[in-house]
């Protein structure tokens, strides 16, 4: 299982008391493969793949945990479809 820049998100802004397990819980249900705490309120988290990283950023970036804590979730993943994105014609 290779370390891959695409699988990484930076998470910050969560309550200072959280340990690595608490940080992993923030990103539920995305699958967390590794966490490095980089400061009192920031961590680098490895998820399973770039798609989960992309969705975690969409879902959690800017999310308000409570009135004092707003999550910041950022990554380097840029979606690069080979042809223009087409969505199904009905939902």
């Amino acid at each position, binding site marked *: *299982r290779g370390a*891959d820049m695409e*699988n990484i998100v930076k998470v910050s802004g969560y309550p200072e008391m959280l340990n690595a397990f608490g940080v992993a819980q923030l990103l539920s*249900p*995305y*699958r967390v*493969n590794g966490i490095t705490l980089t400061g009192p309120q920031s961590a680098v988290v490895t998820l*399973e*793949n770039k*798609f*989960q990283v992309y*969705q975690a950023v969409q879902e959690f970036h800017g999310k308000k945990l409570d009135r004092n804590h707003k999550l910041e979730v950022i990554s380097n993943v840029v*979606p*690069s*479809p*080979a*042809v223009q*994105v*087409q*969505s*199904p*014609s*009905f*939902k």
Partner: protein
Amino acid sequence: MASSSTAFYLKDAGFHIRNVPKEWNDWNLFHVFQSFGRVGYCRVAGHSNDMQLGFVNMLSHADAEAVRKNLNDGTLFGDNYTLKVSDHKNIGGAF
């Protein structure tokens, strides 16, 4: 790669896709399935004649169920594509 199509997955949340347009990459397939729910894994796996094969795993059973609801007889109709979607069965039955 973190996972491959031969690894174990959450049961009943995985799909085999046939008829993937040959100019698509994994992001194209991902965006189609993301419109139904959260995607755990997605891959475009190579050519059969002029179409490609794909594998998609949804992150939960609820997300997979949302995909099934949008299937017409195992087929997903889009603007310029028709995907043939079938359930992925794990071999051995773990999970």
